[in-house]
């Protein structure tokens, strides 16, 4: 087969997020299905993955105890990955706002200091796992969605930053890094708020993960944003955005469902797309990445597509091989 040249040993390292394969509570619970998905990812040229911090026994790769139940142990799982064509788990994405059966909550707020102890305890499950499997990054959603939090105050930013800094200390002690990921619904809405949050988080403790689609939907120009914060960026999520939230429906109650899943008042059928199919200027971003000599990971994602997930992975692979790699060369 033709070489794919999507490597993880250069200045820019490529990986793929494993979050998109999860369909419903029980639709992706079988080990065979997960192994098949890993093979599809590997066959598409991506040999490193980012896992999603999940909950419940229906998510075989969501938590270390689930991995142990399904694969024998975390170490055995990590050793087996190579058999399926996967070299490494690079990172885990953790959103404290998501419910957790194990920790017994319906979603926590980093802006509430009363929630910090549980957030840290929950994060420690994943950071210990990452350290055990040779990972590098905990990718964290640092702020609640706007519809839950409202406009950020100085106090709420300071509280969230304090939580992130504790996480940063925890990960650093394990030889890992914490990077912050802002999504389309986040309470953080402006570049000034980015500045404030980052100013509260020491750069030797906390980095930035830029998600191209989420930030585009939220109205940011990701190329400008990258140029502004490139010194803090250690991680990317690459996916395309097919629409911008121009009506500001991130304010809607239950925006995860009302805006993202139901499409808001415009009934947007799909917010996220394969690379090159939407509004993100990936060519300009790749040029900036090359110009500013980015060193780090780019994790490609598929998210909520109507096609088979395999199609999405393969189309993204084609775009990386044929459009981005020549620019980055």
């Amino acid at each position, binding site marked *: *087969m*033709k*070489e*794919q040249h999507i490597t993880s040993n250069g200045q820019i390292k490529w990986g793929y997020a494993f979050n998109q394969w999860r369909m419903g509570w029980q639709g992706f619970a079988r080990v065979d299905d997960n192994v*098949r998905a890993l*093979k*599809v990812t*590997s*066959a*598409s*040229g991506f040999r490193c993955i980012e896992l999603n911090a999940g909950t419940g026994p229906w998510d075989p790769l969501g938590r270390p105890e689930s991995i142990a139940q399904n694969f024998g142990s975390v170490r055995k799982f990590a050793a087996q990955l190579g058999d399926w*064509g996967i070299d490494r788990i690079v990172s885990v994405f953790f959103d404290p706002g998501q419910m957790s059966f194990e920790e017994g909550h319906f979603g926590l707020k980093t802006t509430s200091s009363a929630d910090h102890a549980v957030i840290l305890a929950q994060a420690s499950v994943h950071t210990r796992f990452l350290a055990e499997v040779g990972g590098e990054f905990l990718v964290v959603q640092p702020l609640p969605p706007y519809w839950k939090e409202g406009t950020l105050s100085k106090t709420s930013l300071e509280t969230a930053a304090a939580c992130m800094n504790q996480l940063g200390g925890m990960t650093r002690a394990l030889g890992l890094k914490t990077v912050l990921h802002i999504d389309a619904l986040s309470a953080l809405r402006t570049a000034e708020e980015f500045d404030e949050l980052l100013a509260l988080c020491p750069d030797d403790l906390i980095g930035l993960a830029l998600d191209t689609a989420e930030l585009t939907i939220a109205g940011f120009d990701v190329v400008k944003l990258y140029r502004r914060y490139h010194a803090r960026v250690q991680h990317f999520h690459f996916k395309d955005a097919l629409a911008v939230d121009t009506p500001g429906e991130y304010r809607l109650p239950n925006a995860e469902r009302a805006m993202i899943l139901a499409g808001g008042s415009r009934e947007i059928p799909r917010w996220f797309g394969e690379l090159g199919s939407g509004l993100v200027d990936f060519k300009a971003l790749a040029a900036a990445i090359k110009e500013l000599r980015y060193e780090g990971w780019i994790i490609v994602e598929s998210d909520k597509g*109507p*096609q*088979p*997930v*395999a*199609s999405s*992975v*393969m*189309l993204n*692979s*084609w*775009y990386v*091989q*044929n459009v981005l790699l020549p620019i980055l060369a």
Partner: protein
Amino acid sequence: MTESARKLRFAYMDHWRIDGPQGYVSQYSSVKLLDSFVKQIAALGFEGIETFDFHLGVLIDLFGSLANARTFLQERGIDRVVSLFHAVLFRNGVSQAHERQTHEGLFNHAHHIVKSADGLGVENLLVMPAGQYYDVEPVSDEKIRACADLWSRVGKMTLDYGIRTCCHHEFYCGIHHAEQIRKFYEWSDPRYVFWYCDTAQHVIAGVDPVDLYLKMHDRCGGFHLKDTHDVDRVGDYRQRPESEVTAKTTPRWFWEMGTAEGLVDFPALFAAMKEYRYEGWVSVEHDKADVGGSNYPASTAIAAWYIRNVLEKIYA
């Protein structure tokens, strides 16, 4: 990628269909859908595709000419349409390879196809060498000789266009048992008639494709790598109207390489290919991969995974 592994180039035989907003559609429905299909195949490392001859008209409709269609493929990493499957509608008294009085029409049909294919870079014309078993039986030596004579004549003609005629034995083909196959290749002209090794079809028919390759490697024009979980033990090859889709025992005959239940010994086949220094195109075929809720993209990726992680290591 080792240099020895690059002696093989992989192609994808295209049965692909997708669920879209307008229901179940072919990727030949639009340039956009074809673009998506070709990029997915190329992303996995395939460098060629194979398709049916009845898509020639659609390709001209979409691109204006077959040369334009090939340029479209090449811009996306697919070099050529390696093979065209010659979809003959075998009909008694009209177009049956075992009926000599129908040969002129069959020859002219094949001639029309290879003349029409110019521009795509086609190297092989694939054809089932006899009609459906229920139309051919009882299969006699004379009927096999008639088929051999027809495809020898066709094969000589197609070579004038730089295209090899390769025979592909579906498990319901009038020539599918080992002895029938042996006679067919003995009686057809080795200069003009090649054997296309469809691994699953042979296993379903009770024929070991590895053994066949060892015996007929010098006649082998290429491969359709696909797997099966079932051998036809009850005569499904006689099922009307077409055993592949209407057999009562088996809703899905074909599987991608790499499933635990697969019956084809692909490692042994690749070891044999290495031993006999096979070089050139090798095709993966997913025929009806969507039966039972699976889908073509995932099956194709799994097959690609199997090639990279298992088969290329054997051949290297």
